[in-house]
């Protein structure tokens, strides 16, 4: 089963390509994980990006390829790999949040 902690939203993939999107959020950052239909079932995979939330309502985020977690869109072929990444990402975001809080107010992102 996919990790449900820190899950902000689970919705139909909004581009209409079929499949689902899971959006996670921890301290301003998060992960989008999309699973789309594939003609070959064995090709079904997770497309994962680290994101930075602009606002939660309305839901707006930007893809963030500047963290140490991921410099590009990641692909996972199993739920286990996705879950492991999510665990890692949640810890990373917690620490990142702590570090950002230590910055002087005008330097905070």
């Amino acid at each position, binding site marked *: 089963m996919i990790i449900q902690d820190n899950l902000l939203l689970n*919705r*139909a993939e909004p*581009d*209409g390509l079929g499949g689902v999107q899971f959006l996670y959020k921890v301290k301003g950052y998060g992960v989008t994980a999309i699973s789309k*239909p594939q003609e070959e*079932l064995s090709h079904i995979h997770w497309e994962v990006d680290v994101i930075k939330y602009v606002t939660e309502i309305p839901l707006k985020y930007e893809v963030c390829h500047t963290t140490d977690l991921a410099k590009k869109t990641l692909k996972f072929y199993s739920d286990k790999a996705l879950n492991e990444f999510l665990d890692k990402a949640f810890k990373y975001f917690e620490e990142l949040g702590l570090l950002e809080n230590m910055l002087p107010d005008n330097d905070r992102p």
Partner: protein
Amino acid sequence: MSNLDFVAEGKPADWVPLGETQTVVDPMEMFFKLPRKTEFITGSEAARESIRRMNVDVAIAYPITPQSETMQQAGYLYDEGYIKDFYRGEEEIGVMSACSGASRAGVRTLTATSGPGLMRGMEAISSWPGARVPIVLMDMCRVINTPLAIQPDNIEMSFMLNTGMLLLHAEDQQDFYDYPLVAAIVSEKVDVTLPCAVSVDGFFVTHARGQVSMTPKEYKLPPRDGWASAVPAMDNENPPARLSRDAPIQKSNFISYHMHSSWQQEVFAAVERSAKYFDKYLGGLIEIINPDAEEFLVASGAAVSQSREAVRQEGEAGRKVGMIKIKSIRPWPMRELVAALKNAKRIMVPEFNQAGWLHKELCSTLYGRTTGTMIGGPRVYGGMTMPTEMILEWLADARKKQL
């Protein structure tokens, strides 16, 4: 002696079919009380898990994309002993005809098809309701028109609307697990005794994964009772008569046109009688979000998922938009729709087909019963996608034009 000789097919003599190790539970317990576990699986896998719990006697298969995955899984279920008999038929006319034969024998019968396969089997399928044969038909919609394509498009469902078939439209993988189980039970109710198709928008659901909450596989539905049926089974277990069950429907030498018309009336009355069961087992023929809204999206199948997201985004923007998901196309939830939409100002019907059959159905239901404007669209077809944005744009456009 029969086709059920598992030793001849390579099983050890002490083999116990796994279906026989399952415990039968009451449908209400299966649908609402048993604990459930959620898994992230494809629509085809959801179909397989549904079939595993359906207590199927005979499943007959024929491959066609995007359905093949499901019936080959049914083959594995047969191998494991969850289905009693299974074979690959010659093509869809053969398969649909064989299903009518199996159901006439009084056993639970299942098959699945897609687009062109449904069209090929249509002569047989359209004769099922008149023959009063309960059959579960899983239908994974795909393009039927030339040029050939395997993409989702649910125009094929419109061909089933006036046959006397029961017809459910599954939105996602979860529905494609739940609805076939409900279909099996309702179609076999004595005052129904009709075949039931469960359509789903193929590829988007069959070939994609979604969260499906399922009951333990150790439980199955009660078997079909071959003695309980609106018309007797073709088992030669009834007192002999010179006219057998099928014969009264033929018109030529013996039967009046009046007989045929009353037979049809009875079929369509049985469709209406099924509504009370679907209402009970599906938890309503429709689902409503924001019932007090003035603007409504009315959809079935995969269009519902995109509509849900459109409603959510409209909500973020401070606009309350209602949504109705139509679960059951036949029986058609006329009373429910009229009640839910009588005060609506604007009703929009997004669809995955060119003809807009759902829009037409809705128009004929709501004519004279609402003062709201009916908007047929947005529509995508031939495999086109329907982004949430498209629905939002149509809504904005309708508001701008004050439709």
